[in-house]
């Protein structure tokens, strides 16, 4: 049983790492601020989501799992808001 859980964790962590890698490539390769922002925030959220899902079976106790999910939700909130704010500045700068 532990093998199944460990395999699940490894697969999920690898998926998360892949999305982080994809996001980083997007950040480096995409042509302008808005698309780079898209790559950074969307893909990071997904990557972190996979990592949190992968780590959930490894924590002991309900509280530890809830903390992990809270971290994920807070990062989602922060990165979504930061993306909005930066995007607004980028749009204003492009107009002027």
């Amino acid at each position, binding site marked *: 049983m532990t093998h199944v859980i460990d395999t699940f964790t490894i697969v999920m962590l690898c998926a998360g790492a892949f999305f982080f890698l994809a996001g980083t490539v997007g950040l480096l390769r995409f042509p302008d601020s808005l698309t780079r922002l898209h790559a950074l925030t969307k893909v990071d959220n997904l990557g972190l989501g996979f990592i949190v899902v992968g780590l959930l079976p490894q924590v002991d106790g309900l509280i530890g799992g809830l903390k992990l999910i*809270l971290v994920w939700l807070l990062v989602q*909130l922060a990165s979504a*808001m930061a993306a*909005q704010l930066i995007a*607004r500045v980028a749009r204003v700068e492009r107009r002027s």
Partner: protein
Amino acid sequence: MTGAILFAIAIAALLLAVAVWVVVARTAFTATVGFIVYGLLLALVWVALSAVDVALTEAAIGSGVTGMLLLGAAAQLRATEANVESTSLPLKLSAGILCVLVSGGLAAVMLDPPAVAPTLAPEATAKLSATGLGNPVAGVLFAYRALDTLLEKVVVVLALIGVWSLTPDRAWGGVPGLRLYARPSGTLTLLAQVLPPVGIMLGIYMFWTGADNPGGAFQGGALLAAMWLLVMVARLQPVPPTSLGRLRLLVTIGPFIFLTIGFAGFALAGSFLAYPIDYAKPLIVVAETGLTLSIGVTLALLVAGPAERSA
């Protein structure tokens, strides 16, 4: 080679690269962003070294609050930045040589450690149970190094007095010139409505759990400061004038309580900042509560800066 060593090498290389980036960055803003990244990476290093207390402080104070202060300074300097003459070559050279000497000296000390590091850790932890604190860092800060802890809290208040003393005469006691978000009911407003309940709870938790787990007044206070600043920047709450009595009370109440407990130590336990054995934990919690509040308010006011318009 194990994974841990690979991770250590990778993060050390990354830290060095970011440090170089901060030094060679062309604008103050870029350097500040690099500095914040550097602080967060350094926090990861402290976690890897099992120094979670230090990691939390590095992330909250070293990267967060200091980063905010530097961003404010960079914004102020942006107008003058283009006109700054570049420094002369001899000055650059001598600064470089000085830095290399200091780094070399530090490296020499670090790379040749004694075979058995001198440590007081076993003796310190042996008597820790008397304080009722489970977190050895909190125990050392409040039992063995209480004077240092008191002074570092007073230093924060002194820093605020220093910032306030930059106030022009006409604005004295007025409202700090914190840069506010221009658009009402925008993205930031939503964030300032959703995040503070969670952030304030985490701040209080971090102070409370500091007795037995990593955390404490500085980390909790920094979170409270961030939440207050967020609410003020989003215009959900007005920035208070620096002459407000309640505000000044909050700034000083932590050091005041700590000092009172310190002087009471003369009568109750025989020396300054000594705790009577049965009341050590409650007294420390009372001091920590006041200090968390004071640190939160003081850090936020440091970021808000000196008063710029009269109340």
